[in-house]
């Protein structure tokens, strides 16, 4: 029996396009989509960091006091957490980026062949997945080490 539940939606009904929502949710399509999502997020984060970094270092033109007060900002707990995030995101972005340079040149993806059920795509192979896992692992190790240095003795 049909029952109308009238859950109204505000979809972009005409085009049906997912828009930015389409890449915000990385959970539906496996590790490669997670990597795509993280590569974008880390890229955006590093862009913000880069702008902030240029602003921070340019403070030296206002004299040593301005520079010192800017440096003090990075010595707070919030500053340390931010720097740890910079370490993690830059490590992931670099390592995964190197993997993607090879991938997007057609390397490490396997060869076309005769597809057989259950059709496991050769481009989503374990070389690719391992590359993503290694990038994540190295980012975690780098963040851990950064945290130990920043929050450890004299941090």
């Amino acid at each position: 029996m049909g029952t109308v539940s009238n859950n109204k939606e505000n979809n972009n009904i005409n085009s049906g396009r997912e828009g930015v929502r389409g890449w915000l949710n990385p959970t539906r399509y496996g590790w490669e989509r997670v990597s795509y999502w993280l590569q974008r997020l880390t890229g955006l984060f590093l862009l913000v960091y880069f702008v902030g970094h240029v602003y921070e270092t340019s403070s030296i033109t206002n004299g040593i006091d301005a520079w010192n007060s800017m440096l003090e900002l990075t010595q707070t707990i919030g500053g340390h957490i931010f720097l740890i995030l910079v370490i993690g995101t830059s490590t992931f972005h670099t390592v995964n980026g190197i993997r993607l340079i090879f991938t997007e040149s057609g390397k490490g993806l396997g060869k076309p062949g005769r597809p057989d059920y259950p059709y496991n795509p050769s481009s989503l192979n374990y070389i690719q997945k391992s590359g993503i896992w290694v990038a994540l692992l190295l980012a975690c190790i780098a963040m851990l080490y950064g945290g130990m240095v920043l929050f450890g003795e004299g941090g």
Partner: protein
Amino acid sequence: MSNEDNKKVILKVYRTNYNKDDSPHYDKFEVPVKRWTTVLDALLHVKSYSDSSVGIRYSCRMASCGSCGMKINGRPSLACYTKISELKDDVVVCEPLPNFPRIRDLVSDFSQFFSHHKNMKPFIQNDKVSLDIDDKHDLVEFEQTHEDVDKYLQFSYCIRCGLCYSACPTVATDPKFPGPQALSQAYRYEADSRDDSKKTRFNIIDERHGIWRCHFAGSCSVVCPKGVDPALGIQLLKGHMLGLSKNNKKLSNLRTKNKE
């Protein structure tokens, strides 16, 4: 009768009819299912016994025509190829394919998708052979080895179901991007030893909204029901365009009449 024979699931179907100014909503239907019941079977059951007005598109019921694509429990899938028992859920949500304009209920408009496909000139082009043949005696054959065929065969299995197009995050934000289906077809002809129109297709895809917008999210290959692996084709094509991967394609010879 075992418990499995009496199993029922709730089918939650996205409904909209723009002609009736009907705002989108979901209708719920209780449907009996067996181990082998597909989502398409369940929808047809709804049409037969609950609400004949549910709009769906289908034809072959065997993953060959590519008509029945829809979003099933959040993932683009073919309704005729998705068994309800494999979803392992008591509620099955059917929605129209994302990234396609919606016509009614689960039916979406494929015009733009098809026009991207047509833009790739998806047919063999070869200087030795005219495309306008009036007399059947002018038809020709090319010689190809099995190895030649293996290079493009998997890409020719595409049924144009649009699942890859609706899973692609680049298509989600850029309507001018040809999408995984069209780009993998460009590779299909690039890899075919009968085709020599590499430059024409490269010019079509090497532009601002073209192939370089693909960043290997791989979702197209995850959802493709025919093992086409469009992500593979696209990355191989990029490698060829960059001159980084070897393209040892030797153009096929024409089979001459004397040889027959």
